[in-house]
């Protein structure tokens, strides 16, 4: 009996230690892309299968703790459009309108804002997972993590993530939608100092085989007033500095 209790305690302790390790690894990996309390400018370029540019969009994302993001569309075709994400609740303001509208999780997932949101979401906050082990990523050793979404409304319900063994920088990922289909394969390009992700490439694996490049144009720490994340504030213009 004593042996069984000792074994259970050890197993639970190991499990907790591994969970803590995964949390640390994800926080480390998050630091290469974005963090909470940030203002991030991204450029999204979608290429057709033949390499031609289908569309180019720019977003400013204000990201705050507690799964709160405000995506401001900056491209000429969408200027004035805003998407507010508060956990699993979403609102959209169309250009020229003063009426923030409730949208469903499906509408949010299908919209272009999801790409901007994915570029800034926190893996540590939005996913839990396990360390599957050490693998080879090209020449280097890497760690393979299998992540499961904590919330149903994040764009990808499962992420297989490979990060560097030493510095825990993101290297590549496989993104799965709710139906367990592989939706996109992601790869990450770091800047010269190897301190931040400069670009993320998302290869569509489902139907259209399109390639999406997400470039991080600017990042800066930014705390914004609580009222900015009130859905009715969408009708006002936040000061982006």
């Amino acid at each position: 009996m004593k042996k069984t209790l000792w074994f259970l305690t050890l197993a639970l302790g190991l499990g907790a230690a591994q969970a803590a390790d995964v949390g640390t690894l994800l926080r480390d990996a998050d630091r290469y892309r974005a963090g909470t309390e940030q203002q991030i400018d991204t450029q999204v370029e979608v290429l057709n299968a033949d390499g031609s540019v289908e569309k180019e969009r720019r977003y400013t994302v204000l990201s705050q703790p507690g799964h709160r993001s405000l995506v401001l569309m900056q491209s000429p075709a969408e200027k004035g459009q805003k998407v507010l994400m508060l956990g699993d609740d979403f609102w959209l303001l169309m250009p020229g309108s003063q009426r923030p509208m409730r949208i469903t999780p499906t509408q949010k997932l299908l919209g272009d804002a999801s790409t901007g949101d994915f570029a800034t979401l926190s893996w540590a906050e939005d996913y839990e997972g396990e360390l599957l082990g050490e693998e080879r990523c090209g020449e280097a050793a890497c760690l393979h993590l299998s992540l499961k979404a904590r919330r149903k409304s994040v764009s990808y319900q499962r992420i297989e993530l490979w990060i560097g063994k030493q510095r825990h920088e993101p290297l590549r990922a496989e993104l799965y939608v709710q139906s367990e289909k592989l939706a996109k394969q992601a790869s990450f390009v770091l800047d010269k100092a190897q301190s931040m992700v400069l670009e993320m490439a998302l290869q569509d694996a489902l139907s259209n085989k399109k390639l999406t490049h997400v470039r991080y144009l600017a990042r800066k720490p930014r705390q914004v007033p609580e009222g900015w994340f009130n859905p009715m504030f969408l009708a006002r213009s936040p000061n982006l500095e």
Partner: protein
Amino acid sequence: MKTAIPSSLLALALLAGSAHAELTGQLRGQWQERSAATLGPLAAANSLQAGTAPQAGSGALLDAELRASAGPLTAALSLQHSRLSGPPRSSAALQELYLSGEALGWQFSAGRKLVAWDVGYAFRPNDVVAQEERRTLLSNMPRGRPLLQAEYFSAETAWSLVWVNPAPRQDAHFGDEQALALRVYQRRGALDLHGFARLGAHTHESLGAAAAWVASDSVELHASWHYARRNEGWRSRNDTAALLPASPWQIEALGRRQQALLGASWTGENRLSLMAEAWWDGNALSAAQWRDWASRNTGLRAIASQLPAPLQVAAAGNLGWQAQAFGNSSLRRRNVFVRLAWDHEAWQPALDLLYTPEDGGRIVTASLAWTGNRWRIDAGLRSWGGPAASVIAQLPQRRLAYLASSWSF
């Protein structure tokens, strides 16, 4: 209006030229092909006396929408030049010009500004400050109203108090009067709740409530209700079939009126979306009032057939006045709207229907849009129809086809 063009442009140029200014806009060219209805009082008036009620014809329109902001100041200007079956016309309008600021945790705005609050798509009785256009073929910059606004936002609640048209206006109708309006918003998870109150100089008190609820991953439900103790609408003071020296149609103060809307939208993973709305508009003419209207139309046509040609102009004018019945917030009290749309990469085909169950009238619109990085192409066809006795079938237009190309900067 012509003198407004240089001053409006000057205001915008001054704004755009200042440091940290931001200028955005859209240039659009479009072609419209219209066909007039052969039914209804205007068609009858024009057949008796050509040109009694001139209607917008086919032709080209060029328009520009410019928006500039610098610091606390925002301005929005629209310019239009049209050649629609007549002499060319140009117009300019400063749609918005306001200052915004923050003090003591409150947000303030002062100037001409658009403020719209309701949750519906095809009908919005609680847009009690100003109305954005509904069921538009192409997006248009709406015109704001002079106002002073104070707003407070916490994480879950928002208060908005608006003094609209602070300068008293005696001849103001349909909400363009001096008024105080209040909106309270409360977020409760997947549910948005809105409460509205308005005190108008002519229309006195009105109350409203609205809600939007995300019921599942794909379904959203919304509802809106508005009650006015005194409202305004077009009503006829004389339904007899006699020729009158002046229009019997006047804007009158109506008694207690209610308006209510129920709506739902569904979006599938295949990017197909369906929206359905049904509403009751107590401001619209009743079935009995429309019967009287139709009876007077028939009587006027009968009188005209017995008059010598030179006197038929009087009958034509009387028939033309009958079109003022179309000026209320809805044509019929019961209305249904359905819209089916598909978002397929850069293409957005859509089909929508406005149906009036009381008389079977319908407006059907088919549209196709393509959106690029800066360019957008829109094309579509709207058709007004239904049984000959339905109100919609007697509107001045029968069909409208359009093709537009927009460039954004």
